């Protein structure tokens, strides 16, 4: 197996042991990006000289010499973020963001910037100033968003791990669509320093997208600035919610997730409990309104009138509509946030995690991102935020774990959510699920990323 096909942790271990030359690994990663990226548009910029400078200065940290991708949501010392858009309302400039510093101090080498859904305002990844990213499992399908490039580049094994951000499912949805593990950390636990919305966001967090939970644990430890201890999730109490998030999903998603929940229960010697969690729809619109207005930070009518001509017509219209959100709805959204936080706090006294599908249907076509659910056809964005919003609204951590394939060969995923600060438990549970299915889903790769044999 070539070094760039190893996991994030195994690349780090191989370099530390002297078995892999990090300069060769960097060159191999850049070559693979050149080879695989044209079909995917996952990486929007590489900077080989900067990457080599990072490697030359890399300390002996836990990711010494390991190539990673960072989403176009974070500034680097040599590049301002573009947020997948021609223009932002907020001023940006090249600088050392928190994720950059965390990666640098861990010895990692940033090898490229990952594409993203324009302005972070979508879960499909089909709109970007750079053009859409594509799903490695089927390049006519959405990779998910808004962390489209981090997911597609990791799934295509251009790198073994990437840093994304999640304001309304933006790590979990692309992880689900691309067959990866993606952690949305507890609010404020991972660094957000240097983000252009750091001062105003109450929903967005940075987090890792990797092939499996152990790599997510390693990358999350770096973003958190603390080692995340591993456990076994023994006796896990799993909450199942019989609401639209688990009922209004396509049959193959439902079957895969129900089977995964049973496997997780058996593996951990735990129990499954049906738990009530009403008003998820109210929580969804509350989260949607909050992020849509927080992201307007810096928008004035004058600036809205003078949007860059390369902002997509969709986001141009939506930006104007967002200016009309009634204040009373925002007040009500905050009340719903308080209500759901209290309900979750009570619920997490009874169960350790709650489980439902990360997305209600596999990745939709890029040219028509709609999904056909039991309740009817729905825009994928609308369907996805229903499953994702609660964790962002309340601040709780959540993880997406691959649990199967659709009839079309697309990844299916289960989402687990836990109480505030229990990110480690989610990683433990994800690893238990991997053990239960003998790592079948985290080890599988899209055809364009099949493991290449080492040259003789």
């Amino acid at each position, binding site marked *: 197996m070539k070094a760039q096909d190893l996991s994030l942790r195994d690349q780090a271990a191989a370099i530390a042991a002297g078995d892999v030359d990090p300069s060769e690994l960097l060159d191999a990663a850049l070559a693979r990006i050149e080879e695989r990226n044209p079909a995917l548009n996952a990486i929007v910029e590489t900077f080989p000289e900067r990457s080599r400078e990072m490697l030359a200065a890399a300390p002996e940290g836990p990711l010494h010499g390991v190539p990673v991708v960072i989403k176009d949501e974070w500034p680097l010392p040599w590049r301002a973020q573009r947020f997948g858009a021609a223009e932002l309302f907020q001023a940006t400039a090249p600088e050392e963001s928190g994720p950059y510093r965390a990666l640098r101090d861990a010895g990692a080498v940033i090898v490229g910037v990952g594409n993203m859904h324009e302005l972070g305002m979508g879960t499909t990844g089909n709109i970007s100033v750079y053009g859409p990213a594509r799903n490695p499992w089927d390049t006519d399908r959405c990779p998910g968003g808004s962390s489209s490039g981090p997911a597609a580049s990791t799934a295509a094994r251009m790198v073994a791990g990437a840093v994304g951000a999640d304001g309304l499912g933006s790590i979990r949805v692309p992880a689900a669509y691309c067959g990866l593990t993606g952690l949305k950390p507890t609010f*404020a636990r991972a660094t957000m320093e240097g983000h252009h919305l750091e001062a105003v966001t109450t929903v967005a967090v940075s987090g890792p997208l990797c092939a499996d939970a152990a790599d997510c644990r390693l990358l999350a430890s770096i973003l958190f600035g603390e080692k995340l201890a591993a456990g076994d999730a023994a006796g896990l109490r799993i909450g199942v919610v019989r609401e639209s998030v688990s009922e209004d999903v396509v049959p193959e998603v439902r079957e895969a997730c129900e089977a995964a929940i049973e496997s997780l229960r058996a593996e951990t010697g735990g129990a499954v409990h049906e738990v009530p969690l009403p008003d998820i729809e109210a929580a969804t619109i509350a989260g949607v309104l909050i992020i849509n207005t927080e992201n307007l930070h810096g928008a004035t009518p004058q600036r809205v009138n003078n949007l860059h001509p390369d902002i997509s017509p969709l986001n141009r*219209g939506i930006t104007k*509509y967002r200016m009309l959100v009634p204040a009373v709805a925002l007040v009500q959204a905050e009340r719903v946030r308080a209500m759901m936080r209290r309900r979750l706090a009570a619920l997490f006294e009874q169960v350790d995690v709650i489980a439902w599908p990360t997305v209600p249907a596999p990745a939709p076509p890029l040219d028509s991102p709609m999904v056909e659910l039991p309740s009817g056809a729905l825009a994928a964005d609308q369907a996805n935020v229903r499953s994702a919003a609660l964790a962002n609204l309340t601040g709780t951590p959540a993880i997406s774990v691959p649990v199967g394939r659709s009839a079309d060969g697309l990844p299916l995923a289960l989402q687990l959510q836990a109480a505030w600060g229990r990110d480690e438990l989610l990683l433990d549970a994800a690893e238990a699920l991997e053990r239960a299915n003998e790592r079948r889903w985290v080890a599988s790769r899209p055809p364009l990323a099949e493991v290449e044999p080492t040259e003789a």
Partner: protein
Amino acid sequence: MEGANAPDQFIRAGLAAMGIEVDEIDLAVIAATHEVFWPAILDLLSLDTADLEPELFPDLSQAP
């Protein structure tokens, strides 16, 4: 609001009041967005939270 043109009036009047200009493409996008958002906003507003104690300045990294 009542009447077939109510959303259109609300959107045009609201944006005009802020001095925000719109063209036909904007209006088409906004109308489609409104169709999705507005029923959910009305449902949100209809939720009775009068007895709910607000959580002032919540620390979202922790349980309430």
